[in-house]
């Protein structure tokens, strides 16, 4: 689940009178993730250390001159490159104090931008579409520059991408309402031209963003009507007749963002990773019409992952470097750290989550689909933070920093220290902030435990599971680790809180629980709620035998012994019925509790069935006996579910009975000790069928009840008007 952290201010904006312009020309990465170069729209370039929110140095061109493109940092030569007055390329080093004294070269054509991606050489893109490597340009500054564009074609946006083998310049142009995408490869130089599909007439893309993955350029562009399209362009060109013809660029609608009233004016969309897009300048879907939000959308699930209100005007500018977003808004340039961990549908939605138990417990941090898409002001998604909470958070340190320390700590430190640190961390920070890192913490802990047999931190793991930010997909080895270390309490918690435990793991748990000797089981300490539930259930063992749905277990004894009188085991069964074995819980208290957890996990029977077949016949019989016991308890008047405790439902029990019978039918038929059990189940089914058929008989009359018209109430006296024709 992606998250936006508390932001901070990098610098103020020297906004001009007309507020349409932020005054910032560009933000470029510098030597590492903590340094950026900010170029303002007039004369100065400033180097910042981001985490310190502090300018390190600044350069200014002479009055009368103007910087026409944002300065870039060439990490190979440790030089800065900028262009002033469109034609003068300036190159300087950090030690240079005065720009005027630094290197200058005047070229023969107007420069659009200088690009320099990390690991690539600086490239100069001219306004008429020509591209030169900076080195080759400087070797002959006055060399003639060809015109690539047609008349009235103007460049709108450009970027530079370095792949394994190529350096690419991507830029878009506009010509009489048509938009084109150019893909310029360097060494060897090839140019490919694509035509963008037209959106509604009069709408031009507001922003572009490009990323590279698997030999394809992924282009993302946002239109004023909130549509975010995405197109994929192969890096390897088509070859022969390049640039001759503008190919149509296929596109697909990635997101249809809510735009509120009217069209968007200043907005921007930025690719964060393959599944996330940051969008600024759009309204939050659950926070009214104001368009001053920064949001992270998951494009796979079309869900809003995080949102943040940005105070002041949004200029539709957005840069993102190394997990930080740079947004000019109002009178400041803010830095907002973000995180986009790999997201899974399970963690976004949960798998067959029991809504009933959710309500009673603390709210989860996993918002429901409905909340995200349709839900409104009543519960604004909790990631929308108001000013108030933001001020509260200011006093706290940014958790992402400490997390890294702890992660390191887990890998090496002794058990006690790790546990202590984790307790401190978990008690200190808001779970919401912690959420993305919980998965990392847990998987680090688990992998350490797996590697190091002596290392195991049950309480910390339990605490992490309790945060409800974990799910099985995030930390796939946790349950098995718990089983291996016989930490049944943790198993119980996982079964309770993980929505997406695979059927194989569920079955492994079941197997472990059922084969565990009762003596061992009693030593386990378990969650108190579930214990009290089972205690009440077992306390009623000697209670009066109730009659539910016309089925009384005892009334069928006669019938059963009739059926068995031919068989040799008749006497044995009769002896059994005399003591009513089904009224006594066949397993111990704690074992029963653990089995209950298994019963309540979500599963798909198709996947569960093959794993169930691995159970031995003794275990199957025992489990069936337990299920029968539960069924009888539930059939009697006392309905444990009424107490509001988490307990398996009657349908869950019946489903499991069916599954077990399906998986082991032949074995059970052949097993003599299962005979009584099977006959019991047979009578259950018969009584149920009878009930259902009786209900079926009155179905018609019940339908009629629905159809009955509500008659108008006529009192003792009324004066009415009628008309006769």
């Amino acid at each position, binding site marked *: 689940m992606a998250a936006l952290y508390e932001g901070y201010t990098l610098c103020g904006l020297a906004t001009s009178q007309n507020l349409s312009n932020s005054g910032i020309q560009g933000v470029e990465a510098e030597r590492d993730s903590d340094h950026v170069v900010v170029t303002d729209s007039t004369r100065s370039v400033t180097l910042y250390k981001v985490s310190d929110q502090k300018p390190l140095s600044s350069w200014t061109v002479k009055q009368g001159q103007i910087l026409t493109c944002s300065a870039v940092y060439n990490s190979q030569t440790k030089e800065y490159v900028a262009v002033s007055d469109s034609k003068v390329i300036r190159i300087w080093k950090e030690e240079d104090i005065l720009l005027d004294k630094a290197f200058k070269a005047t070229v023969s054509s107007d420069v659009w931008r200088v690009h320099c991606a990390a690991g690539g050489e600086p490239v100069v893109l001219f306004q008429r579409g020509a591209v030169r490597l900076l080195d080759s340009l400087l070797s002959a500054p006055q060399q003639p520059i060809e015109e690539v564009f047609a008349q009235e074609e103007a460049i709108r946006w450009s970027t530079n991408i370095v792949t394994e083998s190529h350096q690419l310049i991507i830029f878009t142009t506009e010509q009489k309402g048509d938009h084109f995408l150019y893909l310029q490869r360097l060494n060897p130089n090839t140019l490919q031209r694509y035509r963008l599909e037209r959106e509604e007439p009069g709408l031009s893309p507001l922003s572009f963003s490009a990323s590279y993955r698997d030999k394809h350029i992924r282009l993302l562009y946002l239109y004023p009507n909130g549509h975010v399209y995405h197109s994929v362009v192969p890096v390897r060109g088509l070859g022969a007749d390049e640039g001759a013809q503008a190919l149509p660029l296929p596109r697909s609608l990635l997101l249809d963002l809510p735009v509120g009233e009217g069209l968007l004016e200043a907005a921007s969309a930025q690719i964060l990773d393959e599944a996330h897009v940051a969008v600024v300048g759009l309204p939050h879907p659950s926070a009214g019409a104001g368009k001053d939000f920064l949001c992270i959308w998951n494009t796979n699930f079309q869900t809003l992952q995080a949102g943040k209100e940005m105070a002041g005007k949004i200029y539709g500018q957005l840069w993102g470097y190394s997990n930080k977003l740079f947004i000019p808004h109002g009178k400041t340039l803010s830095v907002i750290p973000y995180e986009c961990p790999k997201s899974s549908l399970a963690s976004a939605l949960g798998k067959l989550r029991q809504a009933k138990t959710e309500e009673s417990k603390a709210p989860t941090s996993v918002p429901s689909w409905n909340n995200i898409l349709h839900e409104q002001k009543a519960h604004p998604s909790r990631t929308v933070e108001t000013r108030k909470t933001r001020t509260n958070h200011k006093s706290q340190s940014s958790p992402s920093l400490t997390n890294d320390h702890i992660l390191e700590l887990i890998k090496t430190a002794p058990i006690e220290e790790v546990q202590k640190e984790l307790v401190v961390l978990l008690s200190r920070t808001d779970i919401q902030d912690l959420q993305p890192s919980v998965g990392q913490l847990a998987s680090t802990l688990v992998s350490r435990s797996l590697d190091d047999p002596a290392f195991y931190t049950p309480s910390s793991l339990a605490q992490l599971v309790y945060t409800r930010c974990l799910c099985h997909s995030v930390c796939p080895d946790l349950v098995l680790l718990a089983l291996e270390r016989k930490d049944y309490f943790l198993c119980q918690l996982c079964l309770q809180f993980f929505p997406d435990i695979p059927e194989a793991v569920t079955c492994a748990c079941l197997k472990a629980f059922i084969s565990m000797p009762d003596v061992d089981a009693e030593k386990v300490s378990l969650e108190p709620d579930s214990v009290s539930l089972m205690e009440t259930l077992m306390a009623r063992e000697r209670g009066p035998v109730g009659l539910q749905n016309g089925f009384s277990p005892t009334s069928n004894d006669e019938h059963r012994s009739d059926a068995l009188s031919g068989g040799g085991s008749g006497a044995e069964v009769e002896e059994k019925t005399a003591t009513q074995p089904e009224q006594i819980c066949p397993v111990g208290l704690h074992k029963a509790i653990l089995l209950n957890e298994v019963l309540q996990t979500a599963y798909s029977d198709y996947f569960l069935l093959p794993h169930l077949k691995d159970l031995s016949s003794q275990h199957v019989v025992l489990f069936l006996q337990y299920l029968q016991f539960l069924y009888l308890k539930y059939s009697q008047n006392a309905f444990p579910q009424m107490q509001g405790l988490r307990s398996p439902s009657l349908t869950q029990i019946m489903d499991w009975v069916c599954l077990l019978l399906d998986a082991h039918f032949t074995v059970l038929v052949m097993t003599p000790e299962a005979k009584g059990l099977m006959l019991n189940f047979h009578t259950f089914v018969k009584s149920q069928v009878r009930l259902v058929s009786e209900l079926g008989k009155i179905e018609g009359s019940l339908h009629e009840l629905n159809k009955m018209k509500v008659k108008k109430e006529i009192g*003792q006296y*009324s*004066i*009415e*008007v*009628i*008309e006769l024709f």
Partner: protein
Amino acid sequence: MGEFKVHRVRFFDYMPTAIRAMAFNSRTERLALARADGALEIFNFADNYFQEKVIPGQDGRAVEALCWVGQRLFSAGLNGEITEYDLENLRPRYTVEAYGGPIWNISINSQETLLAVSCEDGTVKMFEILEERIQFQRNLDRQKGRIISLSWHPSGTLIAAGMMDMIKIFDAESGRATHRLLVERGVGASKSKEVVVWSIAFLSDHTIISGDSAGKVQIWDGLTGTLVRTHLVTKWDVLALSISQDESSVVAGTSEGTVVQFQFLSSTVDQHDKEWVRTRTFKNHSHDVRALVHTKIAVVSGGMDTQLVVRPLLDKVEKNTQESALRKVAFPHRSLVCCAKKAGLLLFQFPDHLELWRLGESDGHGKPGDSLPVERKPEKLIQLKRKGEDHICCSALSPCGGWLAYSTVTSFRLYRLQNNNISITKVSKLPKDLRSAHQLCFSSDSSKLFASSNHSSVVVVALNQPECKYLHTLKPKSGSRQPVHLLFASEDGKWLATANTDCEILVYNLEKLKLHCTVPVYSSCPTAIAIHPTTSNLVVVHADQQIFEYALVKKEYTEWSRKLQKQGLHSLWLERDTPITHVTFNPKNPAHVILHDMFMFCIIDQSLPLPEAKTLLYNQMTLRSLPESERIIHSHAFKICKNFQHLMCVRLLDDHSLVVVERPLLDIMSQLPAPVRQKKFAT
């Protein structure tokens, strides 16, 4: 046609009482019916089941059994008296004390000479039928325990008597009990309770059929005194039995409200050994079926739920005819509501009191379908309890609202009302001739009161402050002795029309105080009559739903009436099964005749064409959906409104608003005692 403001009144708490006994005279096709309050009703089954006569009840008269002896009607009840009724003057003729404690049943032998009476003290008493009275003859051997039911053998020599736990057969001549048939008690908890043989039938082949409180219908051989067959019919009681005249079918009524039919059939074709087979079950009642009659074509049943149900046996009638339709009689076939048109007052007649109400008011105007805000609520002005033990038989309120009159079979009372300050004064000095009345009517100017008296005569009384003066007695020339059941005085004060149950309609000229004319007698009994205020045409509606219009001055049927007879009424109109109980006119439009039955009211526009056989009779919905220009093509004379149901009364007030008094059957049902508990699914 127009809009009407309708006062929809539901505060008339009319509550019919339970049916206790019935007797059917197959010669005259009259059904006599006794209710729990002692009232007797006579229905003419030959004339659309019209309720011809009502003899009001009396406190303390609990009729348990009814018996026709020729045209004479006898009843007996738990007060220990046998009563013969005067069906011409609608009152008991005389009563005879039987001196045997409460009487449970009476039965006449087939020769109609001896009336057997079963008494609480264990005796069966024989009364000889004489011309004018009955005379005690002798007792049969006295038994221990009450005798509940009785049945004569058709030969007249034997009597079967149902008792507690047993049936006895008596020799009618010697008075000795010849057989004793023991009736088995119910099983389970009711084992300790005596079984009551509620009803018994003695067939000419000496078969005895009994119905008892254990829910059994049993067939006995009366010669040998042996039980032939037991049919367990219900968990509760079998209360009534009735046998068809040809002794091939028996019906049994139970406490569950069902009627079970048994038929004497051979089990296989062309074999002669017939036996009693249970064939059909009818469920038309919600409560006990206390009284049953098996006529030739139908089963007539009645009981606690107060409705008389005529259920035709479909093997005896032609299918899909009017005859084959189930009929329920829920309301009396006469009006219990009187309306003072000018004053906006309603008079409700109950057996033991009268209620006078003032209608509410509303100033609002609304479009059709609206309910208007009620600005003044309706108000009960007076509740007048009757004096004496006889129940009220008729009542009237003058159109101005200033006079109120009611009559029982023994007394007549007239009151002067002052509505402004709500006072009621009894008029003490009454003419001697005004002893009792069958029907009352005020003239439209409230200056005269007409009271129908003995032998179809009408007493005319002038009303003046502070007393009233006898003016005249109008007597018919025909010499009919039947009571007048309809009276109507014309608006202009010139005419008085009367109708009696002999189907005679007489019109008197009030100025000359002379009989003006006799309307040609029609075979069906008139159910409503009215004289048009301007044209002086008499409109008569009969029990068979026919409508006639008779011009009084010309003494002939009007053109419209002839046209109607020539073309015939619409079949759907004729198929209605409740009689028109009131006719009135619209003073704003002389062509409008307003009439109503229990389920609809109708405005007949005489200026419009009559409905053809193929046209839709109930066409208000269609007309509503049509644009105004097309309505005239589709409209016909009968404007029927079914918005209001279970109508007790529909009147047009002088301010041109309608008053509709409804008494929903559901409301009546809800006031009945709880029926016997029956297992229903999921209860």
